[in-house]
């Protein structure tokens, strides 16, 4: 399978559109960092005004760790689009170009081919997250320095000690890798049923947007649905920033996402094996 994986990776990274994601993430992160560098203190004063009316907050609230948290919060909603851009193209793109039938004439099983393509999509997803981690965490820390991390939630204000933050980011990026691989698996599954890549990309984003809206709306009927939507669990990385970490729900969410990855992948294999390839 390794040679096929190498070929698939070569195909992914040969396409210029693959790099759109890296450029987009780079541009957004740098813009956010620039904005915080120029106007960060005003933004913080505005964001904390409800708290500072009653409390004196001393210390460096605006630091690299906080900027990274804000970037993750902003970006992890949009990154699924960038992942769908590549994962949704894996099978549908080949079908669109008319190379899928030719590809399957090679002495490789359909399952191996699918696994290689999915592994390549996963590697791309992980590379995108590593790039994001490098920019959002490392560059932010270089520009803004480190310090305690203060997070404002609806229920409480959490202040994490500087020494207790870095491992949480590693864990959060690990969790984000599982969440984004779920998106890749969904997009990959939809790619099986399409003849061009626009369909799976748009479908993936539509499903994520719809599920996210259902996850966000605080209506009793939708609240009953929330635990069954994978988008509810995709923000489980935030659980690592509780003190102490609520391991049970975080690990539960990770398990549900892993289950979805296997479910989407197994469905992809079954559907692809039964598919009559005409293009």
């Amino acid at each position, binding site marked *: 399978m390794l040679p096929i994986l190498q070929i698939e990776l070569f195909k992914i990274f040969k396409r210029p559109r693959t790099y759109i994601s890296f450029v987009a993430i780079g541009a957004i992160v740098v813009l956010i960092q620039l904005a915080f560098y120029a106007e960060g203190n005003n933004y913080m004063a505005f964001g904390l005004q409800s*708290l500072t009316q009653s409390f004196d907050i*001393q210390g460096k609230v605006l630091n690299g760790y906080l900027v990274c948290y804000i970037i993750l*919060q902003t970006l992890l909603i949009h990154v699924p689009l960038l992942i769908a851009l590549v994962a949704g193209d894996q099978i549908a793109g080949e079908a669109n170009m008319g190379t899928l039938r030719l590809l399957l004439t090679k002495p490789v099983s359909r399952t191996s081919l699918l696994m290689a393509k999915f592994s390549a999509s996963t590697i791309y997803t992980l590379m995108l997250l590593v790039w994001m981690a490098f920019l959002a965490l490392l560059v932010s820390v270089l520009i803004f320095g480190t310090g305690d991390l203060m997070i404002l939630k609806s*229920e409480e204000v959490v202040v*994490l000690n500087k020494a207790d933050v870095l491992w949480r980011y590693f864990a959060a990026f690990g969790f984000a890798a599982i969440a984004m691989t779920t998106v890749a698996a969904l997009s990959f599954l939809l790619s099986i049923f399409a003849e061009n890549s626009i369909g799976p990309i748009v479908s993936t984003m539509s499903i994520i947007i719809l599920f996210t809206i259902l996850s*966000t709306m605080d209506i009793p009927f939708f609240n009953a649905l929330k635990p069954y939507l994978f988008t509810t669990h995709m923000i*489980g990385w935030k659980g690592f920033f509780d003190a102490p970490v609520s391991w049970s729900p975080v690990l539960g969410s990770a398990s549900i996402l892993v289950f979805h990855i296997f479910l989407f992948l197994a469905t992809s294999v079954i559907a692809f094996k039964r598919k009559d390839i005409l293009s």
Partner: protein
Amino acid sequence: MKNLSIPLFCLCCLSFFCLSPAQAQDANALLAKVKAKLQQVDNYMAEGEMATDVTFINIADSKVKVYFRQPDQFKIVKEDGISILPKGGMSVGLNSLLSGKEFIAVPGGYVQEGNNRLAVLKLLPVAENNGVVLSTLYVNEKDALVYRTITTTKDNGTYETSLQYGKYASWGLPDKVFFVFNISSYKLPKGVTMEYEGSKKASAAKPAGDGKGRVSITYSRYTINKGLPADLFK
């Protein structure tokens, strides 16, 4: 019985008019004694550990440095970190509450707290622009140490401070300060970003609390009268 009531009333009036000035004099003298003790300290830097117990603030205990400079400059700093204190937290430092301010002291009797018989002093600020409306001090007359204060401010509600003394008692500086304030009226704003359901459940499972916030500082070391730069308090 009727015959007795008129002389009894006169006796009460007499005792009120004759004894009150003497007690007021005592209250002011005791306040002066407390202030004199505190004024031995022109400035200090103290190291200690701060613990915050507020239902909606989740912050670990941390090492802090506390700075004071006469008359009322007071600052708590967590090195390289974030500290959150209620506004008007100046009451944490007794020096900053009393130094450089004029009060009218009214005696409030005595209370027994543990082994200490404490004189109660009600302090009314003379200056109109003082943020404090009323302060009540519980003072041990023997050593002029303040063991408890209750301060009502114009803008920030009522604060209660308990003080424990040890090796720095001769300077009037406590080894431990326990600060209680009202948080029942405070509400955190609803978050605008998506929140993780697992975190929400964990927060909801916490006990509701009694509407009071508590901050304690346990001092390990004071550096007294060694000078502090003015820009430290900017």
